[in-house]
């Protein structure tokens, strides 16, 4: 239970546990897309959709039409390619001068393979670490894991969570709004 923390029933010393948000469960991806669109239209800003497989329309509805990964990985790759090229030039021309058959020190065609490999390597590693960092991972616990129903977010259910930090959040009004979207269930998730 340490990593996933499903024991929401653990008695706490605090009087009332803080609320993370209201979690609505939907049966299909289309229902989640529909609900997310309505929620953003209603003015909610701190909300997120959860699905077992990527549903692009949800991210669109959340006003996240384009991720920042492209430019980030491009910069990573560019850095790697430059490092690779100049490393080879510097090391074979100045660090340990190698005269191979009288060819120029800046014999750039022979530096192409390693420049390319370094570009690929740094692009991939930048992508991995930037993804993890931007998504706030790794984190072994998240308030949503307190919800037993949320286990199905990686299986066959689709969730919309309106967070309590949303300026428009109101326990009663938000619950009524979510009920109007006809979810399978609504649950208040504690921190």
């Amino acid at each position, binding site marked *: 239970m*340490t*990593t*996933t923390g499903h024991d929401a029933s653990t008695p706490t010393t605090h009087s009332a546990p803080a609320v993370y948000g209201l979690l609505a469960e939907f049966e*299909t*991806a*289309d229902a989640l897309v529909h609900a*997310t669109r309505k929620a953003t239209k209603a003015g909610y800003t701190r909300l*997120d959709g959860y*699905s*077992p*497989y*990527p*549903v*692009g329309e*949800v*991210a669109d509805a*959340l006003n*996240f039409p*384009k*991720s*920042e*990964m*492209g430019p980030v990985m491009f910069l990573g790759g560019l850095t790697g390619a430059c490092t690779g090229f100049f490393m*080879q030039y510097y*090391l*074979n021309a100045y*660090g*340990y001068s190698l005269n*191979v058959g009288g*060819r120029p020190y800046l014999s750039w065609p*022979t*530096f192409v*393979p*390693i420049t*390319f*490999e*370094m*570009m*690929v*390597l740094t*692009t*991939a*590693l930048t*992508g*991995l670490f930037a993804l993890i960092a*931007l*998504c706030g*991972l*790794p*984190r*072994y*616990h*998240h308030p*949503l*894991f307190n919800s037993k129903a949320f*286990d199905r*977010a*990686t*299986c*066959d259910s689709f969730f919309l969570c309106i967070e309590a930090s949303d300026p428009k959040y109101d326990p009663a009004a938000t619950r009524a709004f979510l009920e109007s979207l006809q979810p399978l269930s609504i649950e208040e998730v504690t921190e």
Partner: protein
Amino acid sequence: MATAELTKTPPADLPLEPEMHPLVQNKHTLVSIGDAVGGVVLAGKHPRGWWIGFLAGMALLQILAVSIAWLFYMGLGIWGINVPVAWGFAIVNFVWWIGIGHAGTLISAILLLMHQKWRTSINRFSEAMTIFAVMCAGLFPLLHMGRPWFFYWLYPFPNVAGVWPQFRSPLTWDVFAVTTYFTVSLVFWYLGLVPDLAALRDAAQKRWQRIVYGILALGWRGSAIHWRRYEKVYLILGGISTPLVLSVHTVVSFDFAVSIVPLWHATIFPPFFVAGAIYSGFAMVVALAIPIRKWYKLEDLITDHHLDIMAKVMLATGFLVTYGYFSEIWMAWYGHTLYEWGTTIERLFGPYGWSYWMLILTNCVIPLTLLWSKKVRRSAFWLELISISVLIGMWFERYVIVITLSREYMPSMWGRYAPTIWDYGTMFGSLGLFLVLFFLFIRYLPMISITEMRELLPKKQGGGGGHSIMENAP
């Protein structure tokens, strides 16, 4: 009137891709896919076939351990390598294993970019195959070094002697290519696994499974924002892995082609090597997929249609390599070079001529005659035999290339090469390392991508209708 005809859209219910061969058979749902694939891992019940494969691999792994221990104790003299054949089995096996790995990247990256949805049920375990094959490949140059504990001398690092690598040498390119290839394959594979690990974490009943899969899943929770970033990274990784896989085997072929050995110094080597790599890699995927889908009853997910397509890829790449064999002989004859032609005659009819004809038989004659038949392509039994034939044939291809060194320019340079029992021990032992890693993988990790199979399901069964990654990753 004509313009009205042209702008008329087809009726909405007309299927763009007729579902002649559904890629997921039976009425699967989101849950049943998780059960079919994840259940194998979580329930921990394994068929007899798993034990057969694992124990066979374990036995071979012991041979590898003994061979390496003896090598470290005695030195490289226990191998059959000599001058002129200084590389021997080590490079034959290195190139063979690297080539096998390439099909994994091809399936996961190139087919992803080409919207080939059938890749989904085989990409995970072919990626795993890539990683394990590259590990086996890496073993051989390391052991061949003589003093493998100084392997880090291959990389540029500041040292007291002030010496740096020679960056104009294909052997140095190879170090960077293989290192990058291994790292990027690992990143690609792990990133693909993360949502599946989260699915396993949430479906697991046992405490240790929740903890282990929970840690490995990095806290993934399927957020729409995360998915959008994830798909973009996955798409770019596919995009850069495509030239990567071509570059790696090109660089491997440069190890030969940059030399001036007759029949090695050829411009056809890079494409010829890449085609051969894909050929043997697909053969390995087929050879592994057939028994595994039978043992684990995954015929619904890895269908006969998948085998058919993979057999067609083998047919196409088989013709490419056959063209390469033809071209080598043609260029030697047409080039009118004494040494090129003389070495060709030695290759065909010299002391190692039998290995050339073995290569033609197992790599060209057997597969390229049988794979034309649809009946054969859809028969698990025949396809298994043909794949093994191709794996043997592609091994012989590299053997034929390496053994060329025994008869090149001057007869005074000629020599003979014979592998010793330790060469064979290391070679078959590496197969054991591969099998052990592979069977551990199918025991502890989902061998088919649960997430991607769920996406592939038709919308009315709860899935994503097989959307392509481009649509979600702007």
